[in-house]
């Protein structure tokens, strides 16, 4: 990175965030150092130091933060762009998806490949977020509200060169008002998502390297959870070149340091030949695509029926339903005259209905066929005569 660019970006780093970063990365502040500067040292080094100005107002502030970045580049062996991103965004976890190979040496790649990489990155985070909320083998639609809200607040960072890298900043607390749901767990939702993602990837790679990938599909409830959706997202990133590899790494938010622990790695490397095994795991985890009967509960939304051959009203009825994973869906069904009559009663009394049927996913409105056991929940109030 050119000194001009480094200093321009360094000027935007706040002194507090720089100090927070140092503390979160194992530096200790030396007390009783005067002169408007915080001095940090490391227990494992006699010489390494960071000098971080206490105020951003000094004329050489940008140069001094650039010095800090230079020192961290040498120590952490990471590009300046990465470290600057971490300093500029202290309250986010940054997940990097890096495609390394001959095709990406110059920092570019095919447009189609790049779009697939981005989509795979997005879906891997979404899959992890859905699994935090509901650890199931397969998320049919990955439309959990919390997960989507997290994705909405994620930021795509400027491409970091030396390979093709997709870097996504994932806020720890995507929606403050919902944080109460997770306060008791003391770990914010964003971190639970990135933590699960990195643990799942680590478990996946460890299992593959131990020739034990079957253990993932055989023990789907084992932790950390691995879903078919995560495997599917990884497959989207599969490099075309056999010598290429995908490296997924995490930079943890300095406001919420992540302690090193077994079962999680800061960096996971996926070799080209491992993707075939990931595909096998995906097939075993993903349920048969054949539609299966399931239970639906919800409200009748609209009644669009018409008289049938017997003169009774029947036909198209639209519902707002709660489906698997407490997902809200809109679906329509063609009801017979008896069920249609119940639907009319439920609609008029604003009652909940439940029934079994087979869901067929559509692009906008889904369809439910083979409706059975259609019931109104609770008594229908009688109209005073």
């Amino acid at each position, binding site marked *: 990175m*050119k*000194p*001009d660019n480094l*200093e321009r970006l360094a000027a935007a780093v706040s002194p507090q965030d720089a100090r927070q970063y140092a503390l979160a990365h194992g530096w200790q502040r030396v007390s009783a*150092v005067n*002169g*408007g*500067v915080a*001095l940090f040292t490391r227990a494992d080094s*006699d*010489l*390494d*130091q*960071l*000098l971080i*100005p206490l105020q951003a*107002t*000094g*004329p*050489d*502030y940008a*140069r*001094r933060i650039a*010095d800090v970045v*230079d*020192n961290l580049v040498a120590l952490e062996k990471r590009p300046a762009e990465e470290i600057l991103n971490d300093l500029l965004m202290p309250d986010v976890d940054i997940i990097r998806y890096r495609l390394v190979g001959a095709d990406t040496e110059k920092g570019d790649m095919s447009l189609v490949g790049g779009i697939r990489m981005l989509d795979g990155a997005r879906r891997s985070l979404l899959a992890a977020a859905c699994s935090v909320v509901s650890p199931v083998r397969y998320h049919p639609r990955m439309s959990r509200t919390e997960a989507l809200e997290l994705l909405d607040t994620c930021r795509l960072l400027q491409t970091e060169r030396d390979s093709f890298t997709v870097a996504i900043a994932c806020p720890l607390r995507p929606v403050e008002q919902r944080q109460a749901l997770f306060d008791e767990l003391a770990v914010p939702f964003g971190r639970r998502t990135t933590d699960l993602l990195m643990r799942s990837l680590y478990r996946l790679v460890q299992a593959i390297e131990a020739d034990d990938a079957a253990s993932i599909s055989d023990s789907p409830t084992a932790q950390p959870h691995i879903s078919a959706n995560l495997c599917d997202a990884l497959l989207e990133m599969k490099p075309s070149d056999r010598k290429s590899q995908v490296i997924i790494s995490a930079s943890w938010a300095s406001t919420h340091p992540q302690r090193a622990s077994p079962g999680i790695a800061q960096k996971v490397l996926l070799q080209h030949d491992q993707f075939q095994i990931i595909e096998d795991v995906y097939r075993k985890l993903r349920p048969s695509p054949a539609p299966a009967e399931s239970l639906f509960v919800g409200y009748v939304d609209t009644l669009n029926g018409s008289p049938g051959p017997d003169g009774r009203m029947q036909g198209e009825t639209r519902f707002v339903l709660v489906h698997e994973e407490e997902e809200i869906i809109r679906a329509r069904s063609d009801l017979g005259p008896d069920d249609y009559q119940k639907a009319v009663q439920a609609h008029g009394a604003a009652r909940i209905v439940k029934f079994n049927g087979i869901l067929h996913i559509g692009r906008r409105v889904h369809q439910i066929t083979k409706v059975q056991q259609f019931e109104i929940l609770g008594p229908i109030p009688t109209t005073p005569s």
Partner: protein
Amino acid sequence: MLLSENNIKAELSYAYLHAVAARAGFACQEGNRHEDGIGVDAKLRIKERFGEDSTLTNFTVDIQLKATADQPTEANGKYAYSLRLKNYNDLRSVECQAPQLLVVLLLPTNSAHWLVHSTERLVCQRCAYWVSLRSAPQSTNDTAQTVYIPTDNALSVEKLRDLMARFSRREVMQYEA
């Protein structure tokens, strides 16, 4: 020629600093020199424990480089050097966290003698001098201010190491006109 005479002098001043710093064991980085004079010309990066009383073992010193082939006037053991006001004000700041030095390379009047090469030696004639302008008084001039550089402050390897050892103890060097 690709470089103007002023550019050659600037490059020689950087080469001088780089050579002395390298021999002293310090890294010398070219700064982001702009046409408008913003930024510094060079940074010395130090990573060394000079003594038990050193607080800093990994620090930076900013250097403003100048070179002149005009023979400076000398009085009371100091060379007089006219410095652009912008540089003067930057260097006299007490708000800077890192030490700042002005280094002026005095070159022979005859440009043919600036750098002399033989199979025995590469000679950069005359030498550079340093001064800290920290806390220097505000100037009432419009464009330039004369500063006074002690003739004792020749920038040698030994002097540079001594200077960095003092900075490692967080000594603050004030300007003495």
